[in-house]
């Protein structure tokens, strides 16, 4: 009995150590990422798919990791204003419209963090502040 209690305490301490090892920034990232997954499901997944695969020639995929490098500011503006006209993704041309999404800057930051760290992308966090800055410089 005593051994079990001691064992239990040791296990607790062990998990507490692991938890405290996670730095503040990686906790922040995880928070953005998981909240972003929820935003993605309700606003993006219908068209772009659960794996970011898009829909053949109709809807562009979100798997073009090369395009997405340094694209975050533009993504924020596209979420805010929508997209219309021609766009080249993954070596293919798409045309049509993406509606403007009614998201708050923090939701944009979360979903951008989610997209740019899923489907083969790996870019780290994109914060609320960065989104606010990007939105100031959107070209209309």
């Amino acid at each position: 009995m005593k051994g079990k209690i001691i064992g239990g305490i040791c296990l607790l301490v062990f998990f507490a150590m692991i938890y405290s090892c996670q730095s503040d920034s990686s906790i922040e990232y995880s928070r953005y990422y998981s909240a972003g997954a929820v935003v993605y499901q309700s606003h993006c997944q219908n068209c772009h798919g659960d794996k970011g695969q898009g829909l053949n020639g109709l809807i562009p995929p979100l798997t073009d990791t090369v395009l997405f490098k340094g694209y975050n500011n533009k993504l924020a503006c596209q979420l805010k204003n929508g997209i219309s006209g021609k766009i080249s993704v993954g070596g293919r041309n798409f045309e049509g419209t993406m509606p403007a999404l009614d998201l708050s800057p923090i939701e944009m930051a979360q979903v951008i963090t989610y997209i740019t760290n899923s489907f083969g992308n790996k870019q780290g966090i994109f914060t609320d502040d960065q989104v606010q800055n990007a939105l100031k410089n959107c070209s209309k």
Partner: protein
Amino acid sequence: MRKLIGVLALVMLFAACKSNTTKVLPIYGNRSAETKTVNGQQITDTVYQTVPAFKFVNQYGDSVGSKNLKNDIYVADFFFTSCPSICPVMQRNMLNVYNAFKDTADVKIISFTIDPKHDTTAVLKKYADKLGVSGNSWWFLNGDKDKVYDLATKSYLVGVTQDSTAAGGYVHQGYFVLIDKQQRIRGSYDGTDPKQVDQLIADIKTLKAEPVSK
């Protein structure tokens, strides 16, 4: 012990019976009884709801309709090309049906546009091309709006309405409706749910195996 053997035997009997019955899909819609005289004898028969004749224009500009579908099982749905809400996910799922049956001569897919003013033949052709659909196993039909809405709500039992407050301007249900060779409704599936669409694919196979009455 003897009891156990008895129970076992019963279970086995039941199991044996079950495996002998082939699955038959139900027939949906309204039905009525019709009494007619054949060879001097009164015969009462059930008359099932069927999809009435229609004739619209497909993505190739050909005039096609129920006459061309007489010997086909088909899946019907309602969409519009500029639809921002449930259509992409419906068409993604419908592509699975298309890929499963595109080489099967008597299985077709019919997508009716509910925005015929915008979705002209040229727009539908472009849409089909981009979706990766070719050949004649999946038709995108443009027809008179009132007729299409009438067919949707009364014959295929799918709700569609024009609503300027909705995203894209139209409200419609995402059902895939399975129609047999006698133009009767044999199933209705939520086109936004991949699991139900898998069931649809299985049910088409069941329906194909069904002996054709008449």
